[in-house]
């Protein structure tokens, strides 16, 4: 980001035919404060992490340079690959489900009906609660013997489930919590989108005899697409870095069945105190996030573009 703000005036200056070598020093005093802050809080920790990732360093023991050995170890570490898979499934589900339910809720709350404002207020409440507090409440609800969920299931003749206490159901159960908490956010974003939609296309569609589904599919969806994209980006970022709910509910268990990269990384660095290996993991994870961000930004640019074109 920083480079963009520095580069832009320079290119503009070049376009106008001025000498950048004369202009650049004049810019420096303005750039310096931001540059210093960015260097201190972003660049330095980054370089330090990179440096630590090529060292073997466990807290309380001497540090030794080992080159790329941590990365080699990482590539052979099954637990890392598993955690990558858990992160992928958890993120995918935690994006798709809130997106689906959030859009549905936005369509419902966009319609006019009595007590709409009040009900909207109720609906966004989960979003305001502290994740750890939510996690603890849900953990109690998921309890196989004492939890209310199994009690409710017993009324409809479904046997007791193990929820977060079973390797197979743990990730879907965690996603339930994540979806419950973050559907309102998607709803709010999409609701904003719906409010901004012009009425005229609908009127002409009605004249053309379009039915409700056709109006939704060919008018609403394309027009709220940029908003959906924003929701996808925000949800993806949130879900991929999700830590609190998983840590508070399962700590990555049972076994390592819900261990995402974040949890494994945290355990490596702060429970095993293996700072070097943890740093290598952080570097790889960061690269994955960067790659994902590029993909999302690309898709977003496309969504905006097609939106412009349709107008």
């Amino acid at each position, binding site marked *: 980001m920083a480079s963009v703000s520095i580069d832009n005036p320079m290119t503009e200056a070049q376009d106008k035919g001025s000498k950048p070598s004369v202009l650049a020093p004049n810019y420096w005093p303005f750039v310096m404060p931001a540059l210093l802050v960015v260097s201190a809080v972003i660049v330095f920790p980054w370089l330090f992490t990179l440096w630590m990732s090529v060292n*073997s360093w*466990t*807290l*309380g*023991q001497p540090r030794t340079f080992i080159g790329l050995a941590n990365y080699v170890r990482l590539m052979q570490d099954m637990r890392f690959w598993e955690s990558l898979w858990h992160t992928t499934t958890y993120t995918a589900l935690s994006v798709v489900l809130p997106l689906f339910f959030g859009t549905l809720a936005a369509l419902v709350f966009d319609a006019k009906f009595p007590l709409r404002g009040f009900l909207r207020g109720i609906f966004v409440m989960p979003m305001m609660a502290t994740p750890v507090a939510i996690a603890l409440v849900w953990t109690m609800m998921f*309890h*196989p*013997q*004492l939890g209310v969920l199994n009690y409710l299931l017993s009324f409809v003749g479904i046997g*007791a489930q*193990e*929820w*977060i*206490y*079973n*390797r197979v159901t743990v990730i879907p159960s965690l996603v339930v919590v994540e979806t419950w908490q973050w559907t309102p956010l998607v709803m709010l974003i999409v609701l904003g989108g719906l409010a901004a939609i012009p009425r005229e296309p609908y009127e002409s569609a009605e004249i053309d005899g379009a039915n409700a589904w056709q109006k939704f599919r060919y008018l609403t969806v394309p027009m709220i697409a940029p908003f959906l994209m924003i929701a996808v980006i925000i949800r993806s970022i949130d879900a991929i870095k999700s830590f609190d709910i998983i840590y508070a509910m*399962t*700590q*990555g*268990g*049972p*076994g*390592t069945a819900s261990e995402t990269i974040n949890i494994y990384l945290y*355990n490596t660095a*702060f*429970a*095993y*105190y293996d700072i070097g290996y943890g740093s290598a993991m952080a570097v790889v994870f960061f690269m994955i996030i960067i790659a994902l961000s590029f993909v999302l930004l690309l898709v977003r640019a496309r969504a905006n573009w097609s939106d412009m074109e349709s107008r």
Partner: protein
Amino acid sequence: MTTSILKPTRRSFLAASAAIGGAALIGGRPAAAAVDWKRFSGTTLNVNLVKSPRSDTLTKYLPEFESLTGIKVNAEATPEQQQRQKTVIELSTGKPSFDVVHLSYHVQKRQFEKGGWLADISGFLKDPNLTDPSLTEGDFAEAGLLFAKDAKGTLRSLPFSVDYWIVYWNKELFEKKGLSYPTSLDELVAAAEKITDPSANTYGFVARGLKNANTPVWTSFMLGYGASTIGPDGKINTLSKEAIEAAKLYQRLLTKSAPPGVSGFNWAEAQSAFLQGKIGMWFDGVGFAPPIEDPQKSRVVGKTGYSVMPKGPGGQAAGTFGDGLGVVEASTKKEAAYLFCQWAISHDMGARLLQAGAGVPFRQSILTDAKVREGVKMPGAWLDAVAGSGKVSKLALPVIIPVTEFRDIYGVALTNMIGGADAETELKNATAQFEPVLARSEG
């Protein structure tokens, strides 16, 4: 309360030190020096504790220490996991924010020693100006000294509280099936399976199934087979016949006789299941007992038996864990910090700990003091189980640096076993995974 000539109270300490101080003033030299508790009056100490009933007892009576010594204490208590991380990170920086640290021996002993983070306090213990004569090395249970001394035999901390693993059992459920408390591990399995009746939501046995937390269950079983996870030669012993047998026992108990979802149970879930009165036996630390006899929290008040772990094919053993209080090497107030540690494990404080059921002091003189025993709120059987376990006490976790990894890696294997995986294969995988970790840590 519990006063004797050998174990003076604060009042008699004060009186004695005043008398000796007076004698010194008139020029007479005291025949035996006594602890000058006021020597560091005005000092401020920072104490880092694990949040638990044990540290609660300390913080509750902190004003007594402050008025005894004139030392101001800032005590910080954080939950176990966070405290362990925080202290290690701070200590490794070389400038920790505390003078006294509460450490879990069974997890941190080797790590703290290798880091050189704890001060040598053996000199303090021998110094009559700093140490009350009632406090001697010989008073600590053997496990306590094993924990507190480093490989060279130097005392690095004062053993504070010991935790033996015992069996809590529901007498009512046992009686219903005409059973008595098992005398061997085989009988324990048989009893657990007899009591189990899923249609009545009743299960014979519960213990930790959650990764990491569950490893001591298996290592404690292993002790009953006469083996420990790391042999005396320092070699890893987790593929031995005993280790596999113990793992199979764990698998059998937790799949056939434990409530569903046990693979996510830590001690708290196991405890709450037991408190509901639907569990035959619960295997965990003695320190978790108090809620059992609390009618507000428990349906098994007065119906619970407390017993030493039954003997296995390799003998009887009670898995032992413990925590201690150490003076930080980087502290500039070592003597004052030592006074705090000494007060924390004093006869009076130990008695309070035991009587509240909050913990078991390592000091034998407290456990054997009839007056202290009278004041214990827990049933006599609990105290007997504590004393009985003390006789067959064995360290349940290996004294290595990567204890957390050990617990995590084998914990995952054990959780997989609850899910139906083959015990031997899982142990093989876990050992293959753990061996390089161990090699790296000591290499």
